[in-house]
Structure formats: structure tokens, C-alpha cells
């Protein structure tokens, strides 16, 4: 493929009815049909008059079919707000969202309903997000009450519930149990089965394993990975646990105070961070491996994230940045890009997914980058 940039409006392929194979075929055709999701310059503010807070400030993200995008950044940086925009729950003040080439915010009525099916959500707290008075089967099948044509008929629904239960590693007999009879990990599986009920193309996972204990977290991560393999579903995966993101994500977007400050392939971002904030974040996260013991490698930042009501001028990270210079206070930093194609990978997949950072003085990678 000679072109490195996808056409902005890829032809949306015709949507067949819900069958598990549909998404898989779509995944194969990813090259032809453009990105599944493309977000450009999305800005979202909250509040009134002078007390306005900028939760998202010109955010760009892009995601292909069957891909997983990791979204990291500290509390309040706008991850959940972005998730709500992707789900159509929050209308951006500026910028565009294209899902399969279509602007979901322009849709009405039946078209909107049809679109809603395709993007689902898994929440952080498996305890709070499920209605305690509904059985597992009711919870999983509830979305079909709104989207009536997805699985018509009680018999078919029963059968599909059982398929979904087994897909997330639960038993048939679990269908008639209630949330309080399940452990946290099992509840999270029900949440996932429910998200899958409408056979979505994209699942936004907001801290899906943060409330779970380590030994259970691994089970849920395995379920999510397996679904990606089998159904070709794409994920936006929000987590503050960097080791989880590294394991699950193909690409990573790092946010700071409402802006994307770094983006790239997971390995590039983790092993050769270019933005000083990313570098600090990576070095601050404790790692198990004793040979990586923090010690002098650790970049200890001063202070905490500034208030989103009062964003610093120039570069918003400058109040904590160990590399800050005068320029950083006066001028907004540029987006610098670096091509990251492997030397031996000159063929078609030159999607030019470059590694970008928003910084006047980005860190230079070691020799690995020729």
C-alpha cells in the first residue's frame, strides 16, 4: 500500500446483522475501510462563566479495527471524559469524532440507536455498576430490550446468554444468580458479557481491572484478550497500572491535564519515552524486577498535577518538568514526530504510526533510532 495516510472518510462497510464472525471479517478488511475511530481536536469544558475547567483540550486519537489503545495519565487528566465522548454521552465543544467515517453526534433516531450498539463500555467498579435486583441473565440480556432486533425471541436470547456466559468463562448455571452471589472478578465478567451482548466493534474499558485483586485481575485480562482474538473487537483501555497497559495495548496515548502529550506504539512509548512527563511516569512506577530497582533511575517530580481551572501558560507540564526552560512558560510546545518503522519492515504496513510528543525539548532516544 503506497499511501501511509488513511483516507479521512473510509467507506463504511455495510453492517450485517449480529453474528460473531462479522467483526472478525471486518478486522481483516481494516486496511481498506479506514480507521474504526478517529478523534480530532476534541475539546470539552465544564462549568459556568469564569469558573470554567478544560477537561479535554484538542485531543486526537485514532484506532483501527481489533486494535487496543491504552490511555494513561493521572487522576483528572480527562481519560473518563474522553471515554464519555467516545460513547456519545458527552458532546464535545469543538473537534470531530468519526466512527467508521460517521459523526455519531450528527445521528438521530434509528441511526443513533444503531450506532450506539457498536460502542459499549465496561466500568471500573463491578459492584456499583450492576443492578443488584437483576439476575446475571437479565443483566446480560437487558440491552436487547432497547435494541430489539439484535437477538429476537426468548429462545434465541436464552441461547445467546449461555453463549455469552461461556465466552467470558462463566457457567450456564450462573445465569440465574444475582450480583451479590458473585465475586468481583465474576461480576466484571458479567459486565463484559453485557457489553458483548450487542456485538460491538469497540469496547471502552475504564479501569476495568483496577478494583480487582491481582490473582483475579489476570483472569479478566485473559478474557478481554481472548475476545479480541475471537471476535476482533477493539478496545480503548484506560488504566493507571502501566504494567497492565503494556501487556494489553498495541498503542498508548499519554494524557496530562486534558492534552495528549505523547502517543506511539506501546514498546516505543514504554522503552523510549520522549516526553519528560512520560519518562517520569514510567520511572516512578514500581517494577517487580529487582534488576530495575528504582534508585537513581527514578525521576522524582515536584508537586502534583495543577488544578484544571488554572492551567499553566506555555507548556502545562512546566511547573513539574525537570527539563523546563524559559521558552516553556511562554510558548505552547510543538508536536514532534518520529517515524518508528523498523528497518526490516519496509512493506505495506508502513502505516506511519509515528511516535509523537508535545514538547519543546523532547528526550532523544538512544542509538536504537537510526
Amino acid at each position, binding site marked *: 500500500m503506497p499511501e501511509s495516510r488513511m483516507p479521512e472518510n473510509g467507506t463504511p462497510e455495510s453492517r450485517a446483522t449480529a453474528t460473531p464472525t462479522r467483526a472478525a471479517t471486518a478486522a481483516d478488511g481494516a486496511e481498506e475501510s479506514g480507521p474504526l475511530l478517529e478523534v480530532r481536536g476534541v475539546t470539552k469544558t465544564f462549568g459556568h462563566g469564569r469558573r470554567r475547567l478544560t477537561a479535554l483540550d484538542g485531543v486526537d486519537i485514532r484506532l483501527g479495527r481489533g486494535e487496543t489503545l491504552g490511555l494513561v495519565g*493521572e*487522576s483528572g487528566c480527562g481519560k473518563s471524559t474522553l471515554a464519555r465522548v467516545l460513547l456519545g454521552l458527552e458532546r464535545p465543544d469543538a473537534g470531530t469524532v468519526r466512527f467508521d467515517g460517521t459523526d455519531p453526534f450528527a445521528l438521530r433516531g434509528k441511526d443513533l440507536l444503531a450506532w450506539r450498539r457498536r460502542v459499549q463500555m465496561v466500568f471500573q467498579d463491578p459492584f456499583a455498576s450492576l443492578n443488584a435486583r437483576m439476575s446475571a441473565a437479565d443483566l446480560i440480556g437487558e440491552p436487547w430490550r432497547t435494541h430489539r432486533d439484535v437477538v429476537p425471541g426468548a429462545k434465541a436470547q436464552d441461547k445467546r446468554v449461555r453463549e455469552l456466559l461461556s465466552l467470558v468463562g462463566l457457567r450456564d448455571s450462573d445465569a440465574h444468580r444475582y450480583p451479590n452471589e458473585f*465475586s*468481583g*472478578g*465474576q461480576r466484571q465478567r458479567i459486565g463484559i458479557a453485557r457489553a458483548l451482548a450487542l456485538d460491538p466493534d469497540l469496547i471502552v474499558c475504564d479501569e476495568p481491572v483496577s478494583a480487582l*485483586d*491481582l*490473582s*483475579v*485481575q*489476570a*483472569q479478566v*485480562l*485473559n478474557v478481554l*484478550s*481472548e475476545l479480541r482474538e475471537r471476535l476482533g473487537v477493539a478496545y480503548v483501555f484506560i488504566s*493507571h*497500572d*502501566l*504494567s*497492565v497497559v*503494556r*501487556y*494489553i495495548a*498495541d498503542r498508548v496515548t499519554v494524557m496530562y491535564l486534558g492534552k495528549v502529550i505523547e502517543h506511539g506504539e*506501546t514498546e516505543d512509548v514504554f522503552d523510549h519515552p520522549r516526553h519528560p512527563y512520560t519518562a*517520569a*511516569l514510567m520511572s*516512578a*512506577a*514500581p*517494577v*517487580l*524486577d*529487582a534488576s530495575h*530497582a*528504582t534508585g537513581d533511575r*527514578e525521576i*522524582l*517530580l515536584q508537586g*502534583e*498535577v495543577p488544578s484544571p481551572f488554572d492551567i499553566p501558560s506555555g507548556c502545562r507540564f512546566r511547573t*513539574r518538568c525537570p527539563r523546563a526552560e524559559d521558552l516553556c512558560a511562554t510558548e505552547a510546545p510543538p508536536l514532534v514526530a518520529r517515524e518508528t518503522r523498523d528497518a526490516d519492515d519496509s512493506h505495506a504496513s508502513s502505516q506511519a504510526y509515528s511516535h509523537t510528543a508535545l514538547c519543546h525539548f523532547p528526550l532523544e532516544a538512544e542509538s536504537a533510532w537510526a
Partner: protein
Amino acid sequence: MTTNTAVPSPPAADAPALDVEGLCVDLSTPAGRVRAVDGVSFSVRRGRTLALLGESGCGKSMTALSVVGLLDPAADVTGGAVRVRGDDTLKMSPAQRRRLAGPVLSIVFQDALTALNPVQPVGRQIGEPFRIHRGLSRRQAHEKAIELMTRVGIPEPRQRARSYPHQFSGGMRQRLLIAMAVALDPDVLIADEPTTALDVTVQAQIMRLLRDLQDEREMALVLITHDLAVVAQRADDVVVMYAGTVVENGPVRDVFADPRHPYTRGLLDSVPEHAVRGRPLPAVPGSPPELSAVPTGCVFQDRCPLVRERCVQERPTLRTSGDGRSAACHFSEELARA
């Protein structure tokens, strides 16, 4: 009000600063009495860090609260000993125990917001230990509080001393709690998940602060956490808890390199850090038992890949080997080969 005389004198250099032996705690629940902590033992010397590692609900906080004498009324210590400076605090009167809180034993709680008094300026709260234990005047205590706030990195401490807890960020509140806890130079500081609710970069600041304070004051630190990486980087020794019991303990380096309990092994394996994307994580199946349904034999039997008849019949005891390590498993030896 000088009460220093009642505090036992500091221990000999090589004696443990804190020695917990066979601690048992029962809880009254609507479903009847259950055992939340079942025979927990560990000890820690000054200047050393011991990690209590385990998943939520395994009894870490109950253990910590029993040690400092702050258990909820629904819970009773039903056995064991908690020795500081050679004396068993469980045998002391409430007044004697209160005198230990601050100069000998101190705790930083999991939830900084609820641990601070919301209607009192923070300077007053931080100065309080000096008034109660050292008999300082209000003004002297206030000066001490400002000194401590400076030490833990609160900017503009003199002005901020008049602020209330909700006016501080999560990281700052945790610093305030730490300031209070180290005010009287305790022998032993217990920190219960001190960074769990904080952002990664702030977590790193707090861990650094704890380490600096520990070095400077030669405290013994009991670090309670569910984070294996924190244990690996920060602790000398580790006590792995499961369902109210200790399943393994020993020097962190050895335990993590070569675990002798299948649960420790399972935890280490399920960390995504070493996993390869696209390959399943080796997860431990199932989840920890409810307190009311802890099996009679081995507590880990429902999830253990090595389980067999004997494990169902007989609860393994924590067996100590010569190298300062112990594990509660009938078949530890096989784990090395598995």
C-alpha cells in the same frame, strides 16, 4: 502531664522492635463469629522494612489495627502476643497502651481523609501529640507542627497550618498523616496502604518520604500493601497473607526469586510485567474464600494446582527452614520442581 516514665525503655539493638506472635482476631458478623486473623506472626527490627502482602480482605488492616490497639468494637483479639520493647501490649491496660501510641508505635492509615479530623485545622492536629505526650504549650506544639509540615514537604507550612484537611490534595493529606505519625519518633511505623489512592508520581514522592524518614529516625517500618512491585523495591522481608493466615515469609529477594507456597508463586506469575502481549497470563483460578467459608484443611486448597487428599484433611503449619524462610504448604518441596 509527663508520662514518659511509663514507657518501657528502648530495646537492645538486635532485639526486634516489634514482635507479633500467633495473633488471632475474631469478628462478630450478622452470620456469626468468624476468624479474620488466624495465628499471624512476624517480627521486625529498627531500620528494617517488613511488608505485609496480601489481597483485599485477607486481614492486613485487622492485623495492623490489633497491633496499635485500635480495633473496631466488632472485633476481638482472641490470642497471641504483640511485644514492643519486650512487653506484651495485649496484656497492658488501655491507659498503658495509649502511652505507647506515638513514641513507640505509630500508624499511617489507608484513608487519609477519614483519618484526619475534618473540623480542626491541620496544624492543631499535628501538634497534638506534643501536647499530650510531651506536655508542650499550645504555642510550642504549633511551632513543632510547622517544623514537621516543613519536613514532610508541605509548601508554605505556616499559612497552611490553619487550613482544614479537605483543603489539601490527596498526596498532601497523606504527608500530613505521615507528619503526625512520626511526630514522636516511634520505634515502629505501620503504614497501611499509604499510597493506594494516589497517582503514580505522587506515590513515588510519598514512598521516598517514608524511606528518608525511616533512615533518618531508624524506625522499623511495617508496610502493608497488595502491590508486589512495591514490596520488591521497598521491603527487606515479606509476610504473604491469605485468608487471615500467613502462608509464606522470608527475605523478599529469596521469596520472590523462589516462592515456596503455591499462592505466592501464583501471584508472582500473574503479574503482567513479565508477560508477553497476546499470550494468556498464568492466572490463579477462582477467588479467595469468604471468611465464613475458609476450608478446614489448607486455606488455599480450592485454588491450588498441587492440591491432594492430605491438603483437604490437614491444615499445613508454617514450617521454618534454616534459611530464615517459612511456608505453610505440605508440598513446598515439590513447588521448586513444578
